[in-house]
């Protein structure tokens, strides 16, 4: 039980960088909605982070990282952060706790994609508290807290299933329950501020270095590997999506930045297990299949408004599989499919399927219950006026 000052300093900084990703999501989404809901999207990101902060320090952390119960959930030993102190192995337990908190907060913020421009604030607070407790905490426990997925040997370096499959498929379920935005499909709902979305994307790209490299939980070679492959996957994803969109029509900057995020999502579970050349394949494929998922979504007339499903859900699913394909024992101690380890690939597939099914099903159930009890959606008139004025009494422009 010796603290390493280098590791501690590194993870402290990483935690702050991951926290910055939450308003990054807010800016990314805020630029994509209509101007009348700009403040709402940003506010929801901050609110998501604040809800999760209180939930995590009171009981969420314990559910995720408390002593394992039947492989499904953590025990209540750490409720109120009891026994979570300034000591620890390498880094203080408190620091590990708050690093993980930043992940949980970010995940809930990604879900706002599915309810953009139409969710009631009170409903989001209630839903968010239930969601982070019933979906995020179990998934975090399965992968990282000693749950069944970890026992099985499923690899998720920084949250491909826990953060991205959960939020992506959760956003899809949420969008199906709350329904389409008024006028969706009848008139254009173009992004009102694309530079803001690009700025949000830049903050995400920056924060992702901490998200993935920090998940090594030490300032070491593995962290450097994660850092490097993260950047490669983001760059490849950006170019792949851009190229695909260019072939079909215009190389829009929104597609480019979405591709970067898709690459970042896909490399997340793999960052500590694959090398730089595998990262090119992972990011490139992510850019193309996530673009395909977005086209599928729009062609089907689904209003999963800001494409968390296409980018985080589908990208996260690909990332989980890709980890099982490209993992190299020389990097993370485990071989994948290309090195003849079929078993690892099957474990990854099983883990991804279960996470997808659980996240979608449980989110759907929670959303239905909240909708029945207090109603998820604002009134027709509030939606027309926009949530900035209707709910917050504010306007992004004078």
């Amino acid at each position, binding site marked *: 039980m010796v603290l390493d000052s280098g590791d501690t300093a590194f993870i402290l900084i990483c935690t702050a960088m991951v926290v910055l990703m939450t308003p990054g999501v807010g800016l990314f989404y805020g630029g994509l909605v209509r101007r009348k809901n700009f403040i709402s999207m940003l506010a929801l990101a901050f609110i998501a982070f604040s809800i999760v902060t209180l939930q995590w320090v009171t009981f969420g952390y314990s559910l995720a990282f408390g002593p394992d119960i039947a492989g499904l959930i953590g025990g209540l030993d750490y409720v109120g952060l009891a026994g979570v102190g300034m000591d620890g192995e390498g880094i203080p337990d408190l620091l590990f706790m708050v690093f993980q908190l930043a992940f949980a907060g970010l995940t809930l913020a990604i879900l706002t994609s599915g309810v953009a421009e139409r969710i009631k604030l009170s409903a989001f607070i209630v839903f968010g508290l239930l969601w982070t407790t019933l979906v995020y905490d179990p998934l975090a426990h399965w992968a990282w807290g000693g749950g069944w997925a970890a026992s099985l040997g499923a690899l998720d370096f920084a949250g491909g299933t826990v953060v991205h499959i959960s939020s992506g498929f959760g956003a899809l379920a949420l969008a199906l329950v709350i329904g389409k935005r008024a006028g969706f499909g009848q008139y254009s709902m173009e992004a009102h501020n694309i530079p803001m979305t690009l700025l949000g994307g830049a903050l995400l790209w920056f924060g992702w270095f901490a998200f993935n490299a920090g998940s090594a939980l030490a300032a070491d070679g593995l962290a450097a590997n994660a850092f490097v492959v993260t950047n490669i996957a983001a760059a490849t994803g950006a170019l792949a999506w851009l190229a695909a969109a260019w072939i079909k029509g215009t190389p829009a900057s929104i597609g480019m930045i979405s591709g970067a995020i898709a690459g970042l999502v896909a490399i997340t579970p793999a960052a500590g297990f694959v090398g730089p050349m595998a990262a090119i394949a992972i990011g490139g494929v992510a850019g193309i299949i996530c673009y395909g998922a977005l086209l599928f979504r729009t062609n089907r007339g689904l209003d999963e408004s800001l494409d968390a499903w296409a980018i985080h859900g589908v990208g996260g699913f690909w990332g989980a599989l890709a980890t099982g394909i490209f993992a190299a024992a020389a990097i993370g101690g485990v071989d994948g499919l290309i090195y003849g380890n079929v078993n690892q690939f099957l474990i990854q597939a099983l883990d991804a399927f279960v996470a997808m099914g659980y996240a979608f099903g449980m989110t759907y159930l929670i959303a239905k219950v909240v909708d029945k009890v207090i109603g998820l959606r604002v009134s027709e008139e509030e939606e*027309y006026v926009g949530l900035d004025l209707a709910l917050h009494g504010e306007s992004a422009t004078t």
Partner: protein
Amino acid sequence: MKMIIAYIRPERFDRVKEALVEKGFFALSVTEIRGRGAQKGITLRGGKVSIDLLPKLKLEIGVEDTFAESVVHIIREAAWTGKVGDGRIFVLPVDFSVRVRDENITTA
């Protein structure tokens, strides 16, 4: 000539534009504005929140006298939802207009 000034719902703009193009009216200027009509905007949650200036679009279209009525009709039909806040159309007389490029003058 007439200058047609129409205040419409922003979300109806695509329809209005398409309807005008369909009948051969291409020239058009658009401004994003905020405004209110006789109903003083929208009141929410039983009067607790009142929003009296809502985003609208202002269209300006200069046409020859003979087309004024049909343009008004096209805009009205495409902008109509039947609810409060559909907007208003004004028709103003114009002495003449000059095309900047070649000084082409239109009077009727």
